[in-house]
């Protein structure tokens, strides 16, 4: 009995030791950052050393490009040391901010900025911007607007994406076209001619995948998703409706069954089997990163990059496009807002922005960088840089409910394409669901 008892005692001691060591170990390393800072203060460092944590959503080689910049900053600023952390899932940021443990600077998608910012998760940067005379006029308006609402700027867009029309030169020539379509009417005609069915009626080649991006075409038709003056969501706006009709028109030409069948034979996006690379798609609407992938996966592909077609009845809306961004922001509740801002501002400076966006193959958000030499080597960037100065670029209206709006719109758009719901009814459903969220 005694022997047994002592064995149990030993087990309990071991368990306790395990728990305590886990605890102690954790605490030590958690505190080490601060201790380091205090040690530096005690020494002959002139200022208190601040340690900033910087969480970003890029991974792998893209994260390496960012770490390079962080190192550059750290070398130049011994008193403000930044520690980067790559985290592909934004749930972490959300939890940390809510739990009162936010990073000092973080990245996010532009579409999250105003929903998070308006709810108080992001610190408005306007005072800093004014104080340091950051020239917001240098930013592409469509990119900046996704970070702004109610007169406040919640984040600085660091990189942007816009889509253009890619076309397979050989396939267009074969169909008798000497150049890309310029208007929406021509696009429709191109799609019909470039879609080829086998003898058995099986789709072999498709002009353009009809499920693609209703937003881009909405702007081509002069559509708008939100009327800020009337505080009305407008999924039923005439331009939006035309864009949905356009997609639906192509979809119905082939039908869900045949398109599913066709889609099933398509290869992975980031591989040599990307349907545009293999000629399964004669045209596609895609972003500035695609030329880099083509260079990597399909170096022999003869392709062209053209503006998004415009509505022939509205020639002033030439070169339309849908802009999305990646941003840097300062979460609410950070301990060193001044230092956080210094680092954020530095990252958004032209020099750093050029280095980073060129390295990861994203477009810069500053118009002054659109002719910068660091993009010379990036395939396809001359077309895209030029396009990003078009006045007809838009981003989805930034409101506190925009993520929910986009989700519901894309749900109903898919349902409309598949014929699960009528066009007007589908758009009405979006309005019914989202309008009550307008405050």
């Amino acid at each position, binding site marked *: 009995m005694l022997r047994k008892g002592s064995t149990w005692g030993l087990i309990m001691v071991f368990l306790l030791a395990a728990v305590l060591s886990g605890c102690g170990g954790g605490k030590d390393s958690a505190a080490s950052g601060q201790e380091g800072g205090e040690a530096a203060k005690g020494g002959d460092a002139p200022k208190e050393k601040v340690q900033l944590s910087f969480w970003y959503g890029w991974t*792998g080689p893209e994260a390496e490009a960012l770490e390079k910049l962080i190192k550059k900053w750290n070398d130049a600023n011994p008193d403000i040391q930044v520690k980067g*952390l*790559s985290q592909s899932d934004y749930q972490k940021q959300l939890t940390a901010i809510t739990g009162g443990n936010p990073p000092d600077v973080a990245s996010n998608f532009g579409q999250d900025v105003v929903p998070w910012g308006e709810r108080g998760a992001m610190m408005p940067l306007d005072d800093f911007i004014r104080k340091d005379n950051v020239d917001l006029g240098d930013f592409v308006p469509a990119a900046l607007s996704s970070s702004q609402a109610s007169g406040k700027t919640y984040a600085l867009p660091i990189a942007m994406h816009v889509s253009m029309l890619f076309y397979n030169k050989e396939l267009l020539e074969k169909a008798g076209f000497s150049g890309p379509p310029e208007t929406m009417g021509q696009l429709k005609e191109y799609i019909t001619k470039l879609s080829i069915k086998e003898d058995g009626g099986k789709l072999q080649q498709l002009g353009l995948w009809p499920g693609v991006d209703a937003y881009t075409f909405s702007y081509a038709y002069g559509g708008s998703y939100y009327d800020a003056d009337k505080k009305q969501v407008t999924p039923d706006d005439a331009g939006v409706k035309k864009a949905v009709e356009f997609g639906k028109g192509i979809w119905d030409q082939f039908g869900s069954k045949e398109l599913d069948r066709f889609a099933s034979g398509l*290869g992975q996006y980031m591989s040599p089997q990307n349907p545009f690379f293999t000629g399964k798609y004669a045209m596609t609407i895609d972003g500035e990163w695609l030329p880099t992938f083509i260079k990597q996966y399909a170096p022999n592909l003869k392709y062209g990059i053209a503006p998004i077609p415009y509505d022939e009845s509205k020639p002033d809306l030439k070169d339309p496009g849908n802009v999305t961004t990646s941003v840097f922001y300062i979460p609410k509740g950070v301990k060193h807002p001044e230092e956080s801002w210094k680092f954020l501002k530095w990252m958004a400076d032209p020099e750093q922005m050029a280095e980073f966006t060129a390295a990861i193959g994203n477009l810069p958000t500053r118009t002054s960088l659109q002719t910068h030499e660091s993009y010379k080597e990036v395939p396809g960037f001359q077309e895209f840089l030029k396009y990003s100065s078009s006045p007809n670029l838009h981003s989805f209206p930034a409101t506190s409910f925009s993520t929910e709006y986009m989700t519901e719109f894309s749900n109903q758009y898919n349902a409309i394409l598949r014929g699960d719901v009528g066009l007007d009814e589908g758009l009405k459903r979006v309005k019914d669901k989202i309008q009550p969220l307008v405050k």
Partner: protein
Amino acid sequence: MSAAKMLRTKIFPHTMLILFAFFFLFPFIWLVFTSLKSSNEIFELPPRILPASFQWSNYKAAFETVPFGHYMLNTLVICVLCIVGQLFASPLVAYSISRIPWAGSKIIFAIVLATMILPSQVQLIPQYIIFAKLGWVNTILPLTIGAFFGAPFYIFLLRQFLLGIPRELSEAAKMDGASELRIYSQIIMPTLKPALATVALFTFVGAYTDFMGPLIYLNDAAKWTLTLGLQGFQQDHGAQWEKLMAASTIMAIPMILLYFFGQKYYMQSGSAFTGFK
């Protein structure tokens, strides 16, 4: 051995096992072969199983991208703590609600079930707040401490096993004046070995493959686990699949070894019952 018996005890089992084994083995073979393909080959259509030439360099590249040894060590520390905790707490609690006749057993069982039924997504934030208040964020405590209080899944599982053990087994000892703790540790626990081995294995695999927990609670890349390391192969528009597959293969090996060699704990107990009849 007669032909009929041979058919019944050897040929039939092996045929069935091989047939089914193919279904379960195939994915793993596919994983290994994919990890040896070049990145251009992985998505070839129509697909082929064998790589054109074996790209062992994928493994080298995977090792260069992710500090495997370091992350493996971090992961194993968490796994071991969880197993120790789970094997300590879950059987105790299960024993309490199955073999001790006391008023609370039913209530506790009901609450154990209830905590599993409420979706964890809505409890994530308040849980984080508790750990943040305790100053445990960015330590492994949020990932391991729970195990030392027992997990509902294992408590329920062990309860079912415990209820199946004949009463007489403990009653004889009780008559000899053995304490409850002694009956628990010397009579009941040994018969529970296969179930405890299952708990240990599941705990290991659960902690080893957990993504959300480490993601939320570890803020320091030096403390990362393997699953967080795998993030490095996934980008916005796709993944570096060949490296991801190589890393996944390496990651699977400790789990396979543990299971393969841990099996002997399954086999021992049959006798515990038969000896007692």
